[in-house]
């Protein structure tokens, strides 16, 4: 199963992953048009401090507490990818409380949002990976 992996050794803290993520989820054609003058709310987020930085997004856990704890059944894992059914989600944030990575966020639409490996975006492949200039975020098969 290909997953997004992050190696902080190569993270430059440039935050481009966040912008590419935010852009991908808009479905827009031109980043400048869609992200101009807005506060982005990406599904991948940089943690940074004292020269250390790294991006965090959903790990698509083998034992996903978010899915198991979801009170509505809105979160589910299919083909290794944990996705959110925004129709069902009522924004109780039990998943936020469950996620050991802090990778699930409340979203502007009242539901939650999380990385879905861009399977729902027009891009089809994780844009954070493509947007990372230094290979700190990769999308690959790493076995167990």
């Amino acid at each position: 199963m290909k997953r997004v992996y992050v190696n902080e050794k190569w993270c430059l803290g440039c935050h481009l992953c966040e912008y590419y993520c935010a852009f991908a989820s808009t479905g827009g054609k031109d980043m400048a048009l869609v992200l101009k003058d807005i506060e982005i709310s990406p599904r991948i987020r940089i943690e940074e401090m004292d020269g250390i930085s790294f991006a965090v997004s959903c790990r698509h856990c083998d034992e996903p507490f978010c899915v198991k704890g979801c009170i509505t059944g809105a979160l589910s894992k299919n083909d290794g990818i944990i996705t959110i059914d925004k129709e069902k989600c009522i924004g109780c944030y039990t998943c936020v409380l469950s996620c050991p990575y802090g990778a699930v966020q409340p979203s502007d639409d009242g539901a939650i949002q999380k990385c879905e490996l861009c399977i729902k975006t027009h891009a089809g492949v994780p844009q954070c990976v493509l947007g990372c200039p230094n290979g700190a975020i990769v999308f690959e098969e790493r076995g167990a």
Partner: protein
Amino acid sequence: MAVNYIYPEYEVVRNYDRCIACRVCERQCANEVHEYLKDIKKMVADDSKCVNCHRCVSLCPTRALKIVKTDHTFKENANWSGKSIQEIYKQAEGGGVLLSSMGNPEKYPVYFDKILLNASQVTNPSIDPLREPMETKVLLGSKAQNIERDENGRIKKVMPPHVELSVPVMFSAMSYGSISYNAHESLARAASELGILYNTGEGGLHEDFYKYGKNTIVQVASGRFGVHKAYLNSSAAIEIKMGQGAKPGIGGHLPGAKIVGDISKTRMIPEGSDAISPAPHHDIYSIEDLRQLVFSLKEATGYTKPVIVKIAAVHNVSAIASGIARSGADIIAIDGFRGGTGAAPTRIRDHVGLPIELALASVDKRLRDEGIRNNVSLVVAGSIRSSADVVKAVALGADAVYIGTAALIALGCHLCRSCHTGKCNWGIATQKEELVKRLNPNLGYKRLVNLITAWKHEIKEMMGGMGINSIEALKGNRLMLRGVGLNEKELEILGIKHAGE
């Protein structure tokens, strides 16, 4: 200083319609050109700090940036260029020797660009290099001079020490210190994957890279930094650096401030101590002294490794090469005046030496005239920019080429020529941790592998076009070359005919 005579060379042009203030430019500019003004939620730039390295341009996700050359003009004339005027201002202000990075930028002829290659038609089939066997493997070193046979009449297969390259391209000497750990790792890993060699430069060999020994040329320069037995023996070949194309006759100086941590360890000098490479080797004041150093290195390594002597292309290069060929050296590396450097006095870089094409042609001819061309292999350097340059160099007589600047460009270098500031935004010519990490060797080495693989394909295409399926048959095959727009003398030195002949 009340009057500022130094004007910005570049202007940062930001398209505010496209700028989304993501601040990547701000975060990525080590020169602190860009700044986000929170109160007005806008990015601004200080042009005077810009070195035109394009880091911000490359990373801007909305392509909102471009850097343009300023159209501000001095009152120039044919004699007094803006450059000359500006340089005088700088020296009047600072009182120092002008220092520059990378190779000679001046408008001297680039002979590679005035040479055309041949191809087969009818009388001799061209060869499809993608499918048919096409050999680019090269062995560097001297050749056995005599055929000796054992009691059964079988040839004694004693080959002088040599190195093998899958393609006649090597990464030239760039020291750890002048370039970063990650740049070095990229070069070492790429060389290893490609089956070619990279060169440590004069800065010693980081212990992490001993494992790439089979693909390493270790350099012995006048400063002898990091030179010890294990260093010499961990290599595939040893290079004595006599000179460098960018600064013939000039030594090197890495300021003490850069001698920290691993650099100090690798160079085997105390932290903070200046690393000075004298202009000459102070144990070599004549050609016979060179022979002494060559053989001392051979002794130290049990005659198992070829010894390279690297010189800058200077006016009597062919006579010098002839002397080296008789000194026990196995390989002569000649560095032309367009070769790169981390820092060289501008006047030296721009006014000393000669183009590698002429140096190569004359050295190859001289060695052949003396019948000693097979005593040594010839490696040339000094702005080999493409596979066509490689093919032309080989056809002029080189066994292989070194690439330095081209390799750095592959790693992301944008030729901003500010290596000497140590603030390389691409993580190449810097030791600042936060900048060094910008060059991820996992990506870097792959880019180098891609570059050389692409060149290899192209070399094969060109060879195939000529109906040549082995690089040996290209070496010195000057009939495959024709000059355009060259005068008789130039053609004579290059040993080629004019196009149409």
